[in-house]
């Protein structure tokens, strides 16, 4: 059945269409060129609405071991935010650590149609995929965490060539059905196992004696040579440590010209000025990002309220566990190749540090000029639950609203931020870029994030109203693959999504080599570790993202 979305103001920055009243025509799950009048079609009235492509969140922890540990640790979260009782839902719930069902429903209710899990550990990849398959209304994909795994560190330390590294990375991407490579604290998690408590960019780690810089550059080269569309997704060194702005700037300078994505950069933009030795480094970071077109960032904005942080960076989670609120935490090793720390946080606007973190995130959003290189995230759940996105969007779009909130935060923090002097307000076009077009572009998803012919028929109609928070919290209609799943902010249907993966080719000799390695060093066989296509989404198989030539 053909559908015609008519009368709405279309914002499609990827195709240069900004605020034009025009029709969007959908057929068989795709957007098609307008065939003109005639033929049977269903008309969707979009008058008074703005029309956007489906939202894409490229960094949100929605599946996998640490998310499940978060649910286990924070089971009061589900009691506080149960799914509404009723004939339709009535199962699961939660905000900071929602169940799969609630994850899909809450995202879809805000107009999101694709969400990417940014930290899939190889040993837990099967679990992550099973969970992603269980999330309704949302397309998913996972980023594989490398950079602290013994096999890779050995390859680099023993001076094996780049080709061996590339084969290993390609093998791992396919084995875990992931769509990009993430590095969490390169070498740092490994150093933690040797009782290291921090590891700076140019500090050689224990045992392998590799610097984070070397690990980063090696993997950047691998990803580029393999043609993986998304650059290295880097959670850098020294997360959350005052003064880490220096490390972050050094990391940006260490890219050797390869593209690099720095994730939740808010947590990496702290200076040591002022009498509390904690200050905003947002201006320096933004200046560097503005000057380096090969760098992209997502912000990892913190939002006040209860949440739980879940990260593979056990080194920094161990550092933070003493300030857990409520007082409980989980830290664990995963197959000696990665780690995981889950620490509940309650960000308070009355806390100097939290208030300044909030301001630093907003400064970054507002000072980085090119919206195509900054993506809207709260690093769910680490900076705050993703359900706070509409509020965050209003903070970005509405200067008086922002100032109103700024006046309520900790007094000393207010004097440490230049937020009040920044007059920039995001336009609807810029919101369409940071929540849709830009993430799709960096992930290499050619048929997403825009409304041109051939794109997935994920279309969202938001009623234009001055309160942008209300507007983005309750879209009038959300269509996923052409099917209406949300009407007036309420779920009306559940559909199954798909999972994205990249399958770069690798030398068959790597199979043999890894078979031996798994037999010697890993708790399961290589053949069991690899996830077959048929295991993805109950036999549906992955959607393969095209490699860059």
């Amino acid at each position, binding site marked *: 059945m053909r559908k015609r979305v008519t009368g709405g103001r279309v914002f499609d920055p990827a195709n240069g269409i900004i605020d034009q009243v025009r029709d969007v025509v959908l057929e068989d799950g795709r957007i098609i060129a307008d065939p003109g009048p005639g033929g049977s079609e269903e008309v969707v009235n979009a008058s008074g609405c703005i029309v956007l492509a489906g939202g894409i969140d490229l960094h949100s922890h929605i599946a996998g071991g640490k998310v499940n540990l978060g649910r286990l*640790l*924070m*089971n*009061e*979260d589900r*009691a506080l935010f149960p799914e509404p*009782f*009723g004939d339709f839902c*009535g199962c699961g719930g939660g905000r900071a650590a929602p169940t799969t069902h609630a994850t899909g429903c809450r995202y879809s209710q805000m107009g999101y149609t694709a969400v990417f899990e940014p930290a899939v550990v190889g040993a837990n990849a099967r679990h992550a995929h099973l969970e992603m398959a269980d999330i309704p209304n949302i397309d998913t994909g996972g980023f594989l965490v490398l950079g602290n795994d013994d096999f890779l560190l050995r390859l680099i330390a023993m001076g094996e060539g780049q080709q061996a590294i590339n084969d290993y990375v390609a093998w791992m991407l396919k084995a875990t059905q992931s769509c990009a490579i993430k590095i969490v604290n390169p070498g740092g998690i490994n150093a933690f196992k040797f009782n290291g408590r921090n590891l700076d960019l140019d500090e050689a780690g224990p045992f392998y004696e590799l610097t984070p810089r070397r690990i980063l550059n090696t993997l950047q080269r691998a990803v580029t040579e393999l043609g993986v569309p998304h650059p290295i997704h880097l959670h850098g060194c020294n997360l959350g440590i005052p003064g880490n702005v220096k490390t972050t700037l050094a990391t940006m300078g260490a890219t050797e010209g390869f593209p690099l994505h720095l994730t939740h950069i808010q947590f990496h933009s702290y200076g040591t000025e002022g009498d509390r030795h904690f200050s905003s480094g947002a201006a320096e970071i933004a200046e560097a990002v503005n000057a380096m077109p090969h760098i992209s960032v997502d912000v990892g904005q913190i939002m006040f309220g209860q949440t739980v942080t879940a990260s593979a960076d056990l080194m920094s989670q161990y550092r933070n566990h003493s300030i857990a609120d409520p*007082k409980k935490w989980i830290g664990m090793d995963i197959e000696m190749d990665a780690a995981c720390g889950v620490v509940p946080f309650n960000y308070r606007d009355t806390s100097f540090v939290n208030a300044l973190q909030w301001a630093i995130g907003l400064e970054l959003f507002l000072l980085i000029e090119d919206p195509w290189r900054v993506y809207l995230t709260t690093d769910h759940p680490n900076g705050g639950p993703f359900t706070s996105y509409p509020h965050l969007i209003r903070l970005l779009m509405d200067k008086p609203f922002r100032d109103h909130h700024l006046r309520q935060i900790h007094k000393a923090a207010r004097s440490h931020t230049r937020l009040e002097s920044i007059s920039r307000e995001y336009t609807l076009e810029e919101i369409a870029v940071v929540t849709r077009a830009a993430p799709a572009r960096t992930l290499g998803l050619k048929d997403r994030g825009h409304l041109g012919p051939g794109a997935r028929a994920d279309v969202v109609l938001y009623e234009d109203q001055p309160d942008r928070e209300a507007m983005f919290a309750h879209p009038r209609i959300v269509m996923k693959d052409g099917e209406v799943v949300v009407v007036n902010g309420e779920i009306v249907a559940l559909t199954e999504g798909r999972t994205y993966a990249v399958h770069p080719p690798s030398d068959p000799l790597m199979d043999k080599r890894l078979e031996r390695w798994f037999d010697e060093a890993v708790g399961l066989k290589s053949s069991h570790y690899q996830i077959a296509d048929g295991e993805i989404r109950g036999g549906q198989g992955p959607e393969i993202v095209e490699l860059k030539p």
Partner: protein
Amino acid sequence: MNGIRLTLKAPLTARVDASNLLPAAFAGASAAEVAARTVPFGTGVALVGDLFEVAASEGDALVLSGDPRLDYVGAGLAAGEIRVEGSVGAAAGSGMSGGRLVISGDAGDGLAAGLTGGRIQVFGNAGKNVGGPRPGERQGMRGGVVSIAGRVGDGLGARLRGGLILVAGDAGAGAADGLLAGTLAVAGRLGPGAGRGMKRGSILVSSAPEALAPGFAEAGPQDFVALRLLARRVPELAALFGGELSGRAVRLVGNRLAGGEGEILVLS
């Protein structure tokens, strides 16, 4: 504020979450308005009026007829009184911070979980985990008074942090697990394995417990002036043990594997 009486039309066929049936929520509402409210019923919702006959009643209390499938009765109660005629299901009085909950029959599991204030009185028996933590919490009941005329199930007062629990009957196994502070009084028999990981706090019992968790040491019979003062100050406690406390008790110190600042007093 006028009272409301909710009488079940028939035994419940699915579990009902009664946490929004509170006197404060019904303040100023007419019987018809109350009947039009909804409650979670099974996996869906039901109108209060479909499950209950709603009528105005004398006094200020909310009077409910009980059912073993009626969960979360009085959960989150901050003020006012709820009287239940009959038994209730799980988690009655969970997270209550004030007011009064009176249950004429039995209570299910998780009675008074996370209680911070108010009084709960049960005339029948209570299930497992009385006064324990709510899901995800590190501490159990932190204040208030719970008195149970019958027996209670296993896990009484786990991680109790404050307040007073009075049990006239027997208590099941594993009472006072990880108890942090506060007072338990059991007039019947205290089940096996009590006091595992107990840090501080007091347990008053009328007869020597059969098998405590390892880690307790007997400090001999002593004369406690404090007990006589306590009996005067908290008449309910004295009443539980027959009207008055002599002050003579055998003191078992423990749990010494968890600091040993707690005690079990066997009254004589």
